[in-house]
């Protein structure tokens, strides 16, 4: 016979029994089961005993749970009944509670949708985790500039030299190129150029055509589905000819059609052609000094980015001895949000991770305000539930039962608020989409995480908001509660309430001051003098690289038109600049990045700029073709005290090297947007080939435009007449800021709305409480004014404390945000003061009526007991 050294029942089963069978207080199931187990061991052997033991455990627990669940269900019905009854009885409070919570939860849901969208950019590529963009690190005299562009030859070199880098592609996007197809010309489509590896690395799904053949020769073009539909209707675009007109008309054959690019991609284009075509405008693909294109690479799976970065950082120096530029890798995932780089134009819909944090915190703050409301109002109404709690305790409810009852109540209210919130989100979503320029969909079936998060938010909100009242109520002594001494005259929790009100108010003040500061900053940016005049200037576009023949003749013709004041073909101030370090001057002792700008003689006048010293280029001096003008920042950066007369040597691309002197210093003006600081610019007379900027008189603008169009058709026949107003183009830089301002103001409105709701509820409660007290005071001789003052005193105390807290906090936050702008308003202090005033006023209005009502009440009515 086997000797059982271990007469213990199965461990797991025993533990289950111990913890799940809750009759242990009365019945000793664990011990009894062990007794039987031992007996079974002796009688029937270990297998039967174990079997029996498990059967015992499972069936006992099931039986217990069934019974338990039954009773639980009965109690649940009771709780539900009480909850619904309470809601009906206190309609106003319940409405305030639920609507406040709904607003808070709706804000959070909208924020979740937005954040989810932003975080999902560029994740749809199969190789997302291995794709990187190569970034140039350019040290200048005062800082290191990170530029998203890299030398042309770097991709191939990286793949050659480093086995970790398995593939590369160059990329560049172009807007406004002219193409012709089936007789229709168009410049609206966005063009891209890339190497063949582009399709291997990125997952732009080819509907027709295949990876191998889509870029088999230079004249292949791959288009998106919608572009195919645009030009070819329902026919298959494969094999059809599209002509691109960079200079001469070049026919391209469609060799592939890709699915429309999803919104969540930073690369957006309508058609893409092989990179080799860049020879049209850029003959020098071997140049290591010029950064013009983007390079994306694919790392081997499992490579460590840090290590690769260290290895490749000096690759440019390896090929070009005089270079000072280093490179490093930027993960694809970071491009959308964490990309504060120069030269990053083809990063569509670029966002900023800063905003994600800001909006996240904002939404949470609003939810917090709603929760505070809830807690406040519930605490204030604890009185009414005291008797119920006392009775329940007498009958035999324990603290944990009461806790679960009250927590369950607030979670229930919270879930109800969630339903309302979901409905409001569905209604508000279109407006929100237009505000944020996205196409968010609220679709649970595709987005289970969202669903889980929503429910989670509601439950957490319910638990947090209901926790304090629940804990408080469950601690009541039955006798006190029933005798109405449970709460000393409704003063319970008064400190907590005070704290909560102050917190709520402070948050609202911060929001409002934030909105005001944002608006002020935007206003400032909009109206800041730019150093030149951008009004009434029309820019036209010509995207071929070749001088317009006889431009002087055309120019004279145009100037004869009375409404045209001046024309310049120089690079207008809305375009971003490309810097390089190859400008040489007398006394140059370190590598400095300067931004050369090619201009013509009429640049200064067309844009109404002014010179600080010296003179601008003029036709009188033939040597001006080799001379230079610098701006104030450039003079500083170059270290020139007396810049005029300094020899400068520079070779612009595609042009001859010119050695000349600086003939003048132009007053600083803002190139591009006020987000950037003024760069050091060096002006020279070049073969200006870019857009035309026409300064016109403000009267009869449509006529002027018609004239310009006629002239355009006459001299530049193959290209459609496209124009824009410079001022509008520059305004567009700040679209994002404006949208932020709008969103922020909506948030502030919501915050104030909820806070006022809360205040309203609280005040109505406290005034009701003090009805008798006020009645007595009036009888004893207070005037209405005195009473009003008394009631408002508490309110103003809270206000003052809130302001003391909110003021410095708001100022700190604002300074941080403003720090992101190179040019900004002085400080947010006036805004904060204004915000305090507004918040105080709105709050006061919401409680004023109630105070007045109570103050005016007839003491007889107040003191009467029914």
């Amino acid at each position, binding site marked *: 016979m086997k000797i059982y050294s271990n007469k213990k029942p199965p461990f797991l089963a025993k533990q289950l029994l111990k913890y799940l*069978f809750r*009759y242990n207080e*009365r*019945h*000793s*199931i*664990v*011990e*009894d*089961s062990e*007794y*039987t187990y031992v*007996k079974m061991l002796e009688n029937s052997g270990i297998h039967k005993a174990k079997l*029996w033991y498990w*059967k*015992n455990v499972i*069936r*006992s*627990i*099931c*039986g*217990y749970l069934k*019974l338990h669940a039954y009773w639980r269900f009965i109690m649940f019905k009771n709780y539900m009944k009480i909850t619904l009854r309470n809601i009906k009885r206190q309609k106003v409070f319940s409405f305030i509670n639920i609507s406040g919570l709904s607003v808070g939860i709706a804000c959070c849901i909208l924020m979740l949708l937005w954040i989810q969208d932003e975080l999902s950019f560029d994740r749809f590529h199969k190789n997302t985790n291995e794709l990187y963009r190569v970034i140039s690190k350019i040290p200048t005299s005062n800082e290191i500039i990170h530029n998203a562009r890299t030398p042309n030859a770097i991709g191939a070199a990286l793949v050659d030299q480093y086995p970790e880098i398995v593939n590369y592609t160059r990329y560049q996007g172009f807007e406004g190129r002219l193409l012709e197809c089936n007789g229709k010309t168009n410049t609206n489509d966005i063009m891209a150029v890339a190497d063949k590896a582009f399709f291997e690395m990125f997952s732009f799904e080819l509907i027709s055509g295949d990876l191998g053949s889509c870029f088999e020769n230079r004249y292949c073009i791959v288009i998106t589905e919608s572009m195919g539909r645009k030009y070819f209707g329902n026919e298959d675009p494969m094999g059809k000819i599209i002509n691109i007109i960079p200079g001469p008309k070049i026919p391209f054959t469609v060799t592939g059609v890709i699915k429309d690019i999803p919104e969540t991609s930073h690369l957006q284009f309508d058609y893409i052609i092989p990179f080799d075509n860049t020879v049209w405008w850029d003959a020098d693909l071997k140049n290591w000094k010029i950064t013009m294109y983007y390079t994306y690479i694919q790392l081997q799976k499992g490579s460590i980015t840090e290590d690769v970065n260290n290895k490749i950082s000096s690759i440019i120096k390896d090929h070009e001895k005089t270079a000072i530029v280093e490179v490093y890798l930027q993960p694809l995932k970071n491009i959308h949000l964490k990309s504060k780089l120069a030269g990053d134009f083809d990063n569509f819909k670029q966002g900023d991770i800063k905003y994600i944090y800001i909006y996240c915190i904002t939404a949470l703050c609003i939810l917090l305000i709603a929760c505070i409301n809830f807690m406040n109002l519930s605490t204030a109404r604890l009185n009414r539930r005291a008797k119920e709690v006392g009775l329940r305790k007498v009958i035999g409810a324990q603290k944990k039962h009461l806790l679960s009852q009250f927590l369950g109540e607030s979670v229930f209210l919270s879930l109800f608020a969630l339903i309302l919130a979901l409905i409001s989100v569905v209604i508000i979503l279109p407006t929100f989409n237009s505000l944020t320029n996205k196409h968010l969909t609220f679709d649970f079936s595709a987005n289970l995480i969202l669903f889980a998060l929503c429910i989670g938010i509601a439950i957490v909100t319910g638990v947090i908001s209901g926790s304090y009242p629940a804990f408080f109520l469950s601690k009541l002594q039955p006798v006190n509660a029933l005798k109405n001494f449970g709460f000393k005259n409704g003063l319970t929790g008064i400190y907590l309430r005070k704290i909560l009100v102050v917190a709520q108010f402070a948050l609202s003040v911060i929001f409002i001051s934030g909105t005001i500061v944002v608006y002020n900053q935007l206003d400032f940016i909009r109206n800041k003098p730019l150093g030149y005049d951008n009004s009434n200037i029309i820019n036209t576009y010509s995207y071929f690289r070749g001088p317009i023949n006889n431009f002087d003749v055309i120019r004279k013709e145009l100037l004869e038109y009375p409404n045209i004041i001046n024309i310049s073909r120089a690079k207008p101030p809305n375009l971003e600049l490309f810097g390089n370090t190859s400008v040489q001057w007398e006394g140059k002792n370190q590598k400095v990045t300067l931004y050369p700008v090619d201009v013509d003689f009429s640049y200064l006048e067309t844009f109404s700029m002014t010179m600080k010293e010296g003179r601008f280029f003029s036709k009188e001096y033939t040597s001006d073709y080799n001379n230079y003008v610098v701006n104030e920042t450039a003079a500083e950066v170059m270290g020139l005290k007396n810049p005029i007369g300094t020899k400068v040597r520079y070779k612009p691309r595609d042009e001859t090297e010119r050695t000349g002197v600086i003939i003048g210093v132009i007053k600083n003006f803002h190139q591009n947007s006020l987000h950037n600081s003024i760069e050091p610019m060096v002006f020279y007379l070049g073969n200006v080939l870019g857009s035309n900027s026409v300064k016109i008189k403000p009267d009869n603008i449509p006529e002027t435009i018609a004239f310009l169009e006629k002239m355009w058709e006459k001299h530049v026949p193959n290209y459609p007449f496209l124009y824009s107003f410079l001022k509008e183009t520059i305004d567009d830089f700040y679209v994002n800021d404006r949208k932020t301002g709008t969103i922020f103001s909506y948030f502030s409105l919501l915050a104030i709305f909820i806070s006022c709701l809360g205040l309203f509820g609280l005040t109505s409660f406290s005034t009701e409480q003090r009805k008798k007290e006020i009645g007595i005071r009036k009888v004893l001789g207070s005037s209405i004014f005195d009473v009003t003052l008394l009631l408002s005193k508490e309110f103003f105390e809270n206000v003052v404390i809130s302001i003391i807290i909110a003021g410095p906090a708001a100022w700190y936050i604002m300074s941080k945000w403003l720090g992101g702008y190179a040019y900004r308003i002085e400080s947010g202090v006036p805004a904060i003061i204004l915000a305090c005033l507004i918040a105080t006023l709105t709050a006061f209005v919401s409680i004023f009526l109630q105070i007045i009502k109570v103050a005016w009440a007839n003491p007889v009515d107040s003191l009467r007991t029914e």
Partner: protein
Amino acid sequence: MSVLTVKEEIILSALWMLGRSAYGGILRDKVVKLSKKDIVYGTLYNLLEILIRKGYVKSRKDTPTPVQGGKAMTIYTLTDEGISALKATKELHENIWKEWPVPDLGVSKK
């Protein structure tokens, strides 16, 4: 008429046979022997609860065995009400089964 369900009857009867009070384990053994069917502790305790509530059974915790970690097992005792309930049930059964032929082969009392 305080009539018991069959299961309750078995339990009370077993308790009586064991000398009016017993540990849970011993009780269960007796019930199993009587009813010739296995019964799990959960079921047993549920029934005992009902009986306790009705007042037929009393439960108390025994003094723990003088060993470290000694267990305090519960003892179930039959109350007087329980005994009268049993009596009433027995009478009911006798009335019902009066006409039924009973085999008279040695019915040993235990």
